[in-house]
């Protein structure tokens, strides 16, 4: 395996190495497909389910295997192979973590086996037009009824509604003003949607979703108005999986750039013989290999940009697929959380500086 693509594989158990190799192959299998080709994503998901990778991080008693480390490892290797498995972010990491940590035993029994098998694909209803970075500004409300909860409101930028079997929804509890988290199947009467057109290649469609419907009490996860902790049980793993994607895509881009720079001859030598080409690639490699979390997405973006520059004009054609990867990495500077919000957190929690907002 080319050096730029190799995972450090330091201290991995034989099982973890097996997961790494399997995930890498499933990334390679779809590596020539467009990121926005949904058939490819769905076919890869079927492969992941058949190979057991969708079960990673789900508790064993519900058909799961391994922990969050194994899921992150798989996410990085799939991306390094050439095709990230987007559904691991929400359908596995977010839904699995929230249900496993905060669900009742009935809810866990109802949902987690399907999540582990990959047959129940959750989407996540959280973001609103007025609640992006400031999540607490939610306007979607959940009001108590005789049989459960009446949910009313509007969400935006909801991914994968078109291919999901269930939704995890975050609403404001009407009486306390705190957050409530619900899990319910799709399609659902009283839920309507329209598409958000996005200029970056995304694995899934994006939707505005409008809610005015009632769910039973069994849909509420944990206590009404006390969903904040449950929510972050899902959001922290989400950041980690996305960071792993960033590192993996960075490695893929670097390997492509390395190979092109070694073979493309201009003015009688391979372009990689020139420092203006090889030094930025070397710096990008250092960045990717030492990346942590926030910096993983920065490092991945830098690697993708240098790969794009290495390919010259051909990097912009659909034949090389480089711009696709670059655009996706650019998307990760803004979603799932803006870089600036992450820096705010590091400044306050990491450096003890005063909150700036």
């Amino acid at each position, binding site marked *: 395996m080319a050096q730029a693509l190799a995972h450090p594989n330091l201290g991995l158990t034989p099982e973890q190495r097996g997961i790494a190799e399997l995930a890498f192959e499933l990334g390679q299998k779809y590596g020539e497909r467009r990121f926005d080709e949904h058939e490819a994503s769905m076919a890869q998901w079927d492969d992941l389910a058949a190979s057991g990778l969708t079960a990673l991080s789900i508790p064993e008693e519900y058909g799961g295997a391994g922990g969050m480390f194994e899921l992150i490892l798989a996410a990085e290797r799939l991306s390094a192979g050439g095709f990230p498995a987007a559904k691991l972010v929400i359908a596995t990491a977010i839904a699995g973590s929230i249900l496993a940590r905060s669900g009742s035993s009935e809810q866990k029994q109802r949902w987690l086996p399907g999540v582990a098998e990959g047959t129940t694909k959750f989407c996540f209803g959280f*973001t609103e037009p007025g609640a*992006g970075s400031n999540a607490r500004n939610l306007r979607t409300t959940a009001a108590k009824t005789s049989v459960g909860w009446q949910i009313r409101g509007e969400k935006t930028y909801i991914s994968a509604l078109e291919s999901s079997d269930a939704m995890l929804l975050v609403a404001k509890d009407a009486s306390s003003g705190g957050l409530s988290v619900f899990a319910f199947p799709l399609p659902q009467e009283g839920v309507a949607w329209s598409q958000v057109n996005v*200029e970056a290649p995304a694995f899934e469609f994006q939707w505005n979703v409008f809610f005015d419907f009632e769910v039973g009490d069994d849909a509420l996860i944990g206590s009404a108005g006390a969903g904040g902790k449950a929510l972050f049980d899902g959001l922290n793993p989400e950041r980690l999986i996305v960071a792993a994607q960033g590192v993996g895509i960075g490695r893929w881009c670097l390997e492509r750039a390395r190979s092109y720079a070694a073979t493309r001859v201009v003015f009688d030598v391979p372009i990689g013989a020139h420092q203006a080409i090889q030094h930025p690639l070397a710096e990008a490699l250092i960045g990717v290999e030492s990346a942590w979390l926030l910096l993983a997405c920065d490092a991945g973006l830098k690697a993708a940009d240098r790969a794009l520059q290495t390919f010259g004009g051909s990097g*912009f054609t659909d*034949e090389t697929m480089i*711009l696709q990867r670059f655009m996706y990495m650019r998307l990760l500077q803004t979603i799932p959380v*803006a870089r600036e919000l992450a820096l705010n957190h590091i400044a306050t929690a990491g450096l003890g500086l005063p909150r*700036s*907002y």
Partner: protein
Amino acid sequence: MVVARTGTDAASNRGALSLFLVDPSSDGFEMHPIPVEITAPEKQFTLFFDDVVIPATELIGTEGEGLRQLFSGLNPERIMAAALENGIGLYALAKASAYARERVVWDVPIGAHQGVAHPLAKVKIEVELARLMTQKAAWLHDNGQPAGEAANMAKYAAAEACLAALDQAIQTHGGNGLATEYGLATLWGAARLQRTAPVSREMIFNHIAQHSLGLPRSY
């Protein structure tokens, strides 16, 4: 207009180039689209010339002098590309500033935060500097003075400033920055292309290193 090799230059042993006007409806001429991942008003093509016969009157200027003749178009090309990029930079800044003034999160406009305002201020400076260099290059060209250095510098500076301004505008808009509706990310591919085409930043660096700094040719 087609650049074609018509012989070998005896002194340099390199190709001698000539410029021709070719009618695209000529026999033997074919054009195949190249699918490109960017949104742009003009498409890209691979051209095939299979013994295309054109009249001698379609030779532009002197046979074998094509490269020298081309140079008279290269500086205007750099200057025009820089102007286009500066326009995108100004457009991006206008949109970003308007949004940062109006979008209220946590009770203040997001533009009140230095994490939003300072990066926009930085790219504003960069765009204005690029505009100055572009104007200088255009003035030198119009006044018959050597414009190569200024044109190359303008092209480089404008491309970098344009991309930085557009990127920061997208970042200012949060998730909306990627939505088609906001008219920003659509420009991304075309802006990013400017680092590579019509001349890459690395070739510009080579030119400046050799011609402005007198350093040895590196390639």
